């Protein structure tokens, strides 16, 4: 990995990557393996956003406790995304509402803004369904899981 990182850190190609998450955690592995791509991808100095819509919003729910199903609880990793300079997490408002959820049901995910004296800011941005088409159209690469 470090070789690749070096190879690209000097490159002036910077693309807009969107990771689009539409599936719940644990029932399938897609949420976890998507997150693993995001963490590796963070080494490549690209412009990264994550989107959570449909059942993808369930990935961010507070209070996940996987002990009794014998699987690893990977939800704390989302809160570490700020350390990887992944700071744009778009969550669809309508997807939350259909599921009886509000932003208060989601984990608090923040980052320190280096352009603003390292002030702590929320990473999650609520986005209306109608705005998502524009977000997608602004990307160079969409990885959907």
């Amino acid at each position, binding site marked *: 990995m470090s070789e690749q990182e070096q190879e690209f850190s000097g490159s002036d190609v910077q693309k807009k990557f969107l990771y689009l998450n539409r599936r719940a955690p644990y*029932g399938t592995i897609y949420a976890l393996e998507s997150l693993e791509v995001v963490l590796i991808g963070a080494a490549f100095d690209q412009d990264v956003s994550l989107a959570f819509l449909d059942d993808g919003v369930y990935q961010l729910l507070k209070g996940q406790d996987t002990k009794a199903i014998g699987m690893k609880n990977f939800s704390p990793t989302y809160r570490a995304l700020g350390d990887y300079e992944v700071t744009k997490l778009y969550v669809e408002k309508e997807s939350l509402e259909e599921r009886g959820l509000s932003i208060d049901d989601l984990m608090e995910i923040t980052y320190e803004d280096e352009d603003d004296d390292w002030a702590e800011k929320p990473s999650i941005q609520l986005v209306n369904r109608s705005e998502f088409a524009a977000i997608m159209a602004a990307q160079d690469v969409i990885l959907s899981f």
Partner: protein
Amino acid sequence: MSVLHTVNKSPFEKAAFESCLKHTGPGDAVLLIEDGVYAAVKGTAVADRIAGGNGAVSLYALGPDLAARGITESAVIETVKVVDYGGFVDLITEYDVSQAWL
């Protein structure tokens, strides 16, 4: 003869939950497991499918799958009983046959 129906899919992602509800008979039960447990939550767009549903059918949800997904028992619709894996086993033995809505 009575049937235990299991649903392991989110009601928002797949038609399995809806199809299951349309195919239950009196005396049957529905057990929500894995991503199926999201159907047991109060206040969602599909909650009335359970809350206002067929009273002749008993409803269960698997506690370990609720907890994994951050759903507290207080968020579960009152008519849904929460069971653990042992309760899942008991349901399988209590009902004559099981049908998995994959």
